[in-house]
């Protein structure tokens, strides 16, 4: 009897876990390892705004019971950062200096919040929201009824913003081209959507650009955002919300093609025969559009994971992104986005 095939999934989000479940369904005997940089088992990032509704214990937002990993015979490797993948030797090297062999690799490493380079000096003064830890930290930084200055306002940020408004906080939104990311907004639609934001209770500040973030003056709110015109905005927390960029640096030496994300064909296969990619990390070739494109949102990402997993186990399925990707205003005048549905 030969060794069981080792399927390795890098990434512990919707795509990775969807893929793991699918792999296990289709191959009860294979080895499955999920690798993540995070400290926690799988939870939905989309659930994080719940932190502001009193959910302070990570155990409440886990998707699976902890016994799931044993039951499904899935190895979960946390706090494990991959530094290198060697597609030729089929090995993965971790930051902690361990090397692991894989037979097939599925990269579902997702994306990280983009921070424009001109603001990169001020990273330390801004809060994030991409993990449970970051969410709790943000929660603790916001005094009751305090205000958050949100820069950009992608759909992830706006989801948080509506929870904040709901729970008695103030949100000041500095809009720019990333507002409503990843939705593409036509120029003529924009005003309507901005009004919908105002209708939600968000204080929208349009047409100015932040040039610096600084500590607040004693006795005032903790942060100041300096604007290009010279003015400034005060708030307790500053959160950049400029959409996601793929987390693919660790794949640079692997031999697979990367542009902004990992380049895959419609079957989510990379240019290495043993490596697939799914989720926010990949740019998928679209034959219709004749270009590579990203697909976002929980539904797309989960589906990508499943499709990739099926293809890893021998299928030849093409990923088709969900059709309805438009931002809308519902009959109550509220924003509605497929990105928020899961």
């Amino acid at each position: 009897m030969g060794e069981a095939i080792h399927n390795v999934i890098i990434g512990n989000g919707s795509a990775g876990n969807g893929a793991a479940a699918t792999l296990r369904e289709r191959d009860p005997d294979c080895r499955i390892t999920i690798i993540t940089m995070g400290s926690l088992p799988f939870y939905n990032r989309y659930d994080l705004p719940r932190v502001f509704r009193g959910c302070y214990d990570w155990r409440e937002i886990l998707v699976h019971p902890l016994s799931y990993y044993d039951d499904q015979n899935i190895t979960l490797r946390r706090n494990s950062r991959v530094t290198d993948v060697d597609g030729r030797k089929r090995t993965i090297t971790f930051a902690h200096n361990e090397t692991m062999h894989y037979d097939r690799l599925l990269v579902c490493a997702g994306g990280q919040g983009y921070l424009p380079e001109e603001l990169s000096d001020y990273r330390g003064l801004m809060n994030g929201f991409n993990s449970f830890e970051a969410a709790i930290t943000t929660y603790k930084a916001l005094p009751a009824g305090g205000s958050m200055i949100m820069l950009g306002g992608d759909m992830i940020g706006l989801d948080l913003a509506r929870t904040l408004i709901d729970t008695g906080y103030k949100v000041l939104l500095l809009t720019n081209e990333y507002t409503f990311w990843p939705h593409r907004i036509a120029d003529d639609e924009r005003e309507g959507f901005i009004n919908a934001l105002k209708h939600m209770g968000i204080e929208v500040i349009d047409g100015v650009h932040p040039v610096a973030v600084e500590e607040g003056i004693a006795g005032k709110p903790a942060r100041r955002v300096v604007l290009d015109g010279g003015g400034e905005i005060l708030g307790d927390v500053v959160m950049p919300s400029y959409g996601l960029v793929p987390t693919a640096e660790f794949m640079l030496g692997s031999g697979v093609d990367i542009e902004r994300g990992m380049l895959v064909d419609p079957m989510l296969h990379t240019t290495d025969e043993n490596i697939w990619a799914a989720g926010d990390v990949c740019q998928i070739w679209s034959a219709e559009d004749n270009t590579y494109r990203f697909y976002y949102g929980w539904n797309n990402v989960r589906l990508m994971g499943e499709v990739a997993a099926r293809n890893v186990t021998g299928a030849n399925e093409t990923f088709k992104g969900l059709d309805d990707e438009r931002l809308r205003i519902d009959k109550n005048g509220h924003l509605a986005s497929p990105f928020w549905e899961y």
Partner: protein
Amino acid sequence: MIVTVTLNPSLDLTYGLEESALGEVEVHRARTASVEASGKGVNVSLTLHRAGTPTVAVLLLAGRTGVEIGNGPGQTPLARLRKDYDAVLLSTGSMAAVKLPLKEGEGRDDPTSIKGVEYGLNFLMELHRGEKKKVGKRVAVVGAGFTALDCARVAKRLGAEEVTIHIRTAEEYIPVTKDEIFEAKREGIRIKGLRTPVELLVDENGALHGVEFAQNRLGGWRDNGRRQAIAIEGSEFTEPCDTLLIAIGQRTINDYLDVKLELDRWGSVKAAEGGKTSVDGVFAAGDFVSGPTTIISAIGNGRHVANGIDHWLMGRQRRRQMVRIEPVEGPLRERAFDFIESQHMPTATLAKRAGKLTCEVETGYSEELAGTESKRCYLCNLKYQIDVDNCIYCRACIEVAPKNCIKLVEGVEIREDGTYGELQETRQWDEVGAIWIDNNECIRCGACFMVCPTKCISITRNEFVTQDL
């Protein structure tokens, strides 16, 4: 009439600085430059001349300036130089912009015929010469090298609202440093990948209003280590712009050669070891051979070729490169040096840079920073080695090693070129043939040297030296 005779004349190169602030560590920019003949006798003649006394300076001349090489009228053809001199070295660089290949449409023969289109090299050279340059609101740059980035950043300073660099492959594969890309992005420049310009879009006034690109996919690796990009048929799309700066490469100019030299497929002169071209007595060096590289490699190549010429002239090799190994008394580094972070090059704030062409972006290391940064050097020319004959295999060195740098070895992989690959480690005592320092991992902290009970660890300095034969 006073005649001076100078047997060892020289050329004085003089660079003028704005103010004499030498001594402080900062970047000094030359404001003036001059070349003057010099040497004692010449100087006397010069002074006499300035004082109005007729004088003639007689001196030995080895070189010539002001000679225009070429085949036209008043120019000296290469054939003439060959006749006058034993050896001729061609080092005229890569000073021509590579032409933008377009599929069709206006400007196919000469893109610069369209208003708003320029070659980046010319754009920068003209600017450097003091010409007033203008760019539109939306600037597109095509190309992926330092020139492209320079063009983009200059365009931004000249007031462009939106500057985009369009590259054929992806950011990860282009031959510029990460810092350069980061600084460009900080200045608001965008980089868009996987696209090749195929047509220039021109309005009724003959002015550029956009570029049509084809979507690319990545191809294999080229010989020079770059990625290939392959345009996908039928994938064309348009990006609006009013200025296009083309910086897709530079090439050599060699149409001035009347002697037929063998060229490579990029049109550069082929040069063998020692800079020899296909014609005896004609040598070539630097970017003229290799295409655009860096100053460092050009100078290095120049030195190499000089030796080659000497060899050829004298009919024998008079110098050779050797490895010199000499003992070093003790470690020259401390472990603490390893924790010094890379010192970021201080840069001017974005506000200072904006709109100014004269603002030096990299302001240079202070003396202190420079000292700190230099401590990070791993002193790779130092080699730590265990004398196997005196080693008692006690592993005291391994115990103190800060890295995975000292190993129990049973074998060593020897690569085809004779260098060492991986050390084959073992934990089997009866397989341990040696305890060995892996110089690939060694950070020369000296910890092992200090602790060895039989003092069997030696430190040597290993350097390339040029030796007269």
